[in-house]
């Protein structure tokens, strides 16, 4: 089953990338043309760069903030407040990304919630149509990613912290460790596995992002938020250029593996 539904299509993608094929008619061999295009067409390469910018928003920020949030929630006494905090943080994870995209599109619009808040606090000159702004569109899309990923990271890290032997914290405190050195000496090393899972999951989500961008900006304005996911979709279904899409997909998959691999190794070392 695995071979038929996962491995075979993957190999087929590799194969298609060396042809010129529209998905229905006869295919003609194209050599390395489709691969060359990835590096020579500025829009294709630029979309890959955007995907890495999104890694900052999908991975670095949520994992960083998640660590902070988790270590604060740990110190809260179990009760209504800490439960609410967990739920509020985790809710975005339950929403389909398409719904998140639509909701944020409203919030970002010129008279949407974000600008209303800015106006309310007297920051009128900072209001703008965020998703239509050349400078801020990509970070704005990124913030949606932070919002979605933060809950996942926090809850996972919280669970990890729960598994750390309380004796370690006690020992650290007896040795005179402050809040920060306790975090560095006990919490961080204890969370190694969870951190690896968090980073792996969010990096894949960032590099393979599609739904949020397609819904919120369709890659615009200009080419400002174009990502490989949207490019692949367009190449496949709009242009019926299956072979170019295959080449880009395989390239993207290789990139993901290349980025994930060292992180996985880091997780394995004891």
């Amino acid at each position: 089953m695995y071979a038929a539904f996962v491995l075979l299509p993957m190999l087929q993608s590799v194969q298609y990338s060396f042809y010129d094929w529209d998905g229905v008619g006869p295919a003609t061999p194209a050599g390395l043309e489709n691969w060359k295009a990835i590096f020579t067409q500025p829009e294709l390469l630029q979309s890959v760069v955007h995907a890495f910018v999104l890694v900052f928003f999908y991975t670095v920020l949520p994992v960083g903030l998640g660590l902070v949030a988790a270590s604060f929630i740990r110190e809260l006494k179990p009760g209504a407040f800490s439960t609410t905090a967990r739920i509020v943080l985790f809710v975005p994870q339950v929403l389909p990304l398409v719904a998140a995209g639509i909701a944020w599109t409203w919030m970002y619009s010129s008279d949407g919630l974000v600008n209303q808040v800015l106006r309310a606090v007297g920051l009128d000159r900072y209001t703008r149509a965020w998703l239509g702004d050349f400078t801020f569109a990509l970070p704005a899309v990124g913030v949606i990613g932070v919002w979605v990923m933060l809950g996942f990271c926090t809850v996972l890290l919280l669970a990890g912290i729960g598994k750390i032997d309380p004796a370690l914290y006690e020992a650290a405190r007896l040795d005179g460790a402050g809040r920060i050195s306790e975090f560095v000496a006990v919490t961080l090393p204890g969370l190694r596995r969870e951190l690896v899972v968090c980073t792996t999951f969010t990096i894949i989500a960032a590099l393979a992002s599609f739904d949020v961008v397609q819904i919120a900006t369709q890659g615009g304005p200009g080419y400002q938020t174009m990502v490989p996911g949207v490019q692949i979709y367009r190449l496949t279904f709009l242009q019926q250029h299956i072979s170019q899409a295959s080449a880009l997909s395989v390239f993207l998959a290789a990139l993901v593996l290349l980025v994930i691999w060292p992180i996985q190794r880091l997780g394995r070392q004891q």
Partner: protein
Amino acid sequence: MRTLTQYRGILRAAAGAAAAALLLAACAPGGNSEAGPAPSEPVSIGVGSEPVTLKLLVTSGVDVPLYTALGKLFSAKYSNVTVKVENQDYATLTTTIARTLAGNNVPDLVRVPQLGNLTKDHLLISLDPYAKAYGWDKWPQSQFASTRVAADGRERGTGPLYAAGAGFGLTGVYYSKALAQRIGMTRPPATVAEFEQLLAKAKDAGLQPIMINGKDGGSVYPLQNLVMSYAGDAQAVQDWNYTKPGASIDTEATVKAATTLQRWGEAGYLPADVNDIDQTRAPAEFLKGNGVFFPSGNWQAPGLDKTGSGQFGFFLAPPDVAGGPSYAMTAAANLGIPARSPNADVAAAFLDFVQTDQSARQETVTLGGLVPAGPSDAPVPAAPEGSAVAATVSAFQELLKNNELVGFMADATASIHVNSLVPQTQLLLAGKTTPESFAAKVQSDYERDLGR
């Protein structure tokens, strides 16, 4: 450390993968290049007397009530025919149509969002024999130009006819009658310069001169109109749309049009957040009075009439020189007959019916907001006096008479709209590209799409 057996395992897996890849490479993907060319047996007109179920696959939304109504009218006339309307949303249909038509459960008529590779892969039949049998070849031919595709599967406007439709979309400029009065507009502008004066007056009066959806391509409408106005002729654009060899949009007229559009943006004639307004929000803002003018298509007319009956007018984009030709972008709501359709004759009879039957033509206007073309002497469907629908219908009749229907640049290639025209006009309006590089870039993307 890895053991020798582990390495052997890896080697074996790699060898297996390589062998599989080689095996796959030996047989090229694709095939079925002969799904079926034009029907070889002589076509017959009429629907016969056998019971037939005609299956239509159309796009969701406004298509469904329209084709359901047309199907009922057709069944009323031919009692042995049952019309079944199925639908998919536009994006899904675009993405699945080739597979659907190559499959086994094929509809008899399909709404063709884009011809793409459908003709090259022989998935649609040529309608020429039917056009001859039903006399469509005696009608104004500009209505059929956009669905003629040459043998190379690319160049349009020539070659066999592959689709025909109930009605046509067309674009022009809506205006709010009340706001237009406030800025002293007594008649539609006769030239681009006159239109710009009105825009300036609107701006001075503290009104938003133009409402437009720059997020998903609305700004391309005025752009194309300006190109045609400045050229004084639509031939270059039409050749480009139809991918005639050697066609180029990198012209003086395009540069001038892009310059004008950019100037409108800088002057504040377009909304400040133009690149964030989509086609749902633009008409809503226009209805609220946010915008004196709204360049868009006739599909908006029924909605505008519903909310603000009699409040909105419509005119065709003005020419550069007074008295010059007025062009409008049009796109037919096309239906094609799949090569594997079992009821091609009945499907063709339906196509003829929707274009010629008076009550069918009326439904096309009322329910679809689209203008039926058909024979030049066909009576024009009625629309309430002073309504936006009435204005679009009469504008269309004028164009049809003069053969001034021009395809929409967005349809030139499958991706020129999303990958080039939309982002490039956004860059243009944001002042991030020059009119010259705009024209050059659109042209080079076009050539890349066509593999030239």
